[in-house]
């Protein structure tokens, strides 16, 4: 990063971080309100197995020191959260933050791994198409990529599992097992492959990157560079590659997280998606709040990264 870019980037960052804090606060209020308004009481989960009588639940609420009003509950949660305490899961009693960190690593591996794979496939196709126009090879590759993107990820997951079991006689379902597994590393890659290929990101990445790159390659300054005999790719890299790639990546993070929930179910992957699924069923609100905040922060982080790149490449943009 050039020195000139540091000031606008840090200005922008300060502003964006402030917005992020507000955004996370907003997310927490909205999620809490929805949880509160949704039917069902998380404490009923604890009472499951005996009749959930209201007087019993009330007594329990008092015993546990849970405020009666919704704003009391929110304030209690918020106060603790500011001290870095996200509370304990109602279902398992485990503290939310370490649990989130534990499963978050798995989800991060899955999403970032699949993102890397998507890039690995999309970039060569898009660059080739932008540089050489439509050829038989890259048209075929693009069609395949589009078809894969259109396939529902859960279905593709099952197909992959089926193929592994019946064709390769392998059982690609890791579950954080303590047992020694053969090909464990391979099984680890299968869900990443499925999400990377079928999450629907692939086709858009190819299209976006190809369009942007073609547009930039046709710009006057590139023509000048070409005329001068300078390296065209070096000139086109920032605007034609870096910006569109970060743009599409940050735009696709929410979809990847959504896809991860499904892939984690199919592949028994011990990540945040499965945790969210379970928590939603149990109305386990400390866990749901934690996951919502982490997911929001993750999405925001992607956005921010994109802004940083954009501002660094084009410092004037920060003044607009």
């Amino acid at each position, binding site marked *: 990063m050039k020195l000139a870019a540091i000031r606008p980037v840090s200005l922008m960052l300060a502003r964006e971080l402030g917005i992020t804090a507000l955004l996370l606060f907003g997310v927490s209020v909205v999620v809490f309100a929805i949880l509160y308004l*949704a039917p069902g009481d998380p404490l009923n989960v604890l009472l499951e197995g005996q*009749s959930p009588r209201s007087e019993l639940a009330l007594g329990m609420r008092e*015993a546990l020191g849970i405020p009666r009003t919704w704003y009391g509950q929110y304030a209690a949660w918020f106060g603790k959260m500011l001290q870095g305490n996200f509370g304990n899961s109602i279902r398992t009693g485990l503290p939310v933050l370490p649990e989130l960190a534990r499963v978050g690593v798995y989800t991060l591996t899955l999403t970032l791994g699949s993102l890397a794979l998507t890039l690995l496939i999309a970039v060569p196709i898009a660059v080739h198409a932008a540089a050489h126009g439509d050829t038989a090879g890259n048209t075929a590759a693009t069609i395949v990529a589009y078809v894969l993107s259109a396939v529902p990820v859960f279905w593709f997951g099952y197909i992959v599992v089926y193929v592994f079991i019946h064709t390769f006689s392998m059982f690609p379902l890791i579950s954080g097992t303590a047992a020694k597994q053969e090909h464990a590393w391979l099984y680890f890659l299968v869900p990443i492959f499925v999400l990377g290929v079928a999450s629907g990101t692939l086709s858009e990445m190819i299209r976006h990157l190809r369009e942007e790159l073609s547009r930039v390659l046709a710009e006057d300054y590139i023509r000048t560079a070409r005329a001068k005999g300078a390296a065209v790719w070096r000139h086109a890299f920032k605007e034609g590659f870096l910006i569109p790639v970060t743009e599409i990546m940050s735009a696709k993070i929410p979809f990847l997280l959504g896809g991860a929930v499904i892939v984690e179910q199919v592949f*028994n992957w011990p990540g945040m998606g499965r945790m969210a699924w379970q928590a939603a069923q149990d*109305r386990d609100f400390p866990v749901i709040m934690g996951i919502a905040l982490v997911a929001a922060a993750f999405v925001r982080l992607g956005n921010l990264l994109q802004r940083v790149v954009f501002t660094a490449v084009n410092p004037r943009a920060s003044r607009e």
Partner: protein
Amino acid sequence: MKHNYQSRSEERMKRILTIALLGAATALCIPAHAAPKGDGRPDGGVLNYSEYGRPATLDPITSNETISLRITELVFNGLVGIDEKQEIVPELAERWEASKDGRVYTFFLRKDVKWHPREGDAPQPFTADDVVFTYNIMMHPKTITPLKVRYEFIEKVEKTGDYTVVITLKRPILNALAKFSFKIIPRHGPANPQYLTREDRFARSPIGTGPYMLQTVTGDGEVVLVANPDYFKGRAHIDKFVARPFADQNIMAQALMFNAIDMIVLVNPRNLPEVQGDKRFVLQPYNALSYSFFGYNVRNPLLADRRVRQAITAAVNRQEMLDSFFNGQGTVISGPFAPGSWAYNLDVKPLPFGPERARALLIEAGFKPGGDGIMEKDGKKLALSLKVPIEKESEAVKRVVLAFQNYLKGAGIAIAVEFKEWQAWKEDVFLEHNFDIMFASWVFDDSADISSLFHSAEIGDWKNNFGGYSNPEVDGLIVESKLTLDHEKRRTINRKLHAILAEEQPYTFLWTLTNYSAYHRKLRRVQIHPYKFFSFADEWFIPASEQK
């Protein structure tokens, strides 16, 4: 409470708390022997079994679902236990005496029992203090446990010696002994000695006296248990039990086929044919003491007429549904008691399928067919709402509900089906009573106590008589059955109750499904307890040649 509405298949299956008592209890003392069992059967091997979901907690007090129940069955013991013939046998108590009035029970405890050691510590002995401690922590107001309501009949639990405990009841009750099978936890177990919450370390790393000790819980809730070398009944044969969580039942069946696991505790009916056709596996049926039903809200004047309820039951072909949607794996039932329990009246036959009779009953009740084929009375259409909770694996349920709707259309009854999310469904049915018909299942223990289902005092918010059914004769019989201390007399009363409720049809009683466990043939001597499942697992073994 003895009943639980169970609807979201396996994971939601609630725990059931007392146990069948058949025949008299015998105070037979098993001599203490150190490890190994010395029965000539080989030790060793690992059993990987699959669970559909992950356990919430692993202690026997805060846990309230079947996955945890199965694990606590391996880790803990009660004062008394149940053998394969459903008889009470000594466990932590080697013998006991009951006072003449049936109010005071004195338990003499084994002196050779040790708690599983915590890492780095020597194992501590089990004493009377632990029993008193368990009772006190269970009844503490801040301990949230489904056990509390089950043990309200106990007045106090006292220690009269290091190995003697006296339990005094508020009133004598039938089958009291069977209720003392609750699991004992160590006084030095929980970090908080006053009350137990799910946040206590003990809830996830418990120590007990049972045949298996908790070794680890992996990141994904895979629970690893190892044989307790000092188990007082002799070391269990199989070295290790591993409970592996799955998020998908089809994948679970695939995992069995692929030898990634050795046992499925409850096979999804849809996967049964696949497993059945494979010679490597054994399918073992076990009774679940549960049944499914359509329940009626008799607050609706249309349903208050018994003939309408009878007509609905006559209009649906229950056997056909059972055969088509569950591969015939179950039995159609006639009444309110758990099939397979002693209270169930086999002389009462399920109402036969009879669409003509259904029509006749409706006409008798004053209905006439309307222009669109739907029955009418005083210009009011016989149109009802049906609320069904959405289940995780709901295909079979969906088919049942749609078939029900179809059968009733033929009989001139319009049903509007509404699928609702579990918690929302519970509020509609048990709190708002905003439904005409509901679909659910009950899971029972063997106390055969249906008072909370049909007694009129149980009508109200969150109470189990959700349909508002009220019948003085039924109320009287329920109370009589509860008060009697004579098993035979109680049986007679329950048979009468069964007959009345079969006639009255506050529910359309559907069927009880047969549960199947599937396991690899290498496992031998497998006996399964209906809902605790692993009660006899210390006797299971794997021949040395197949231990790999």
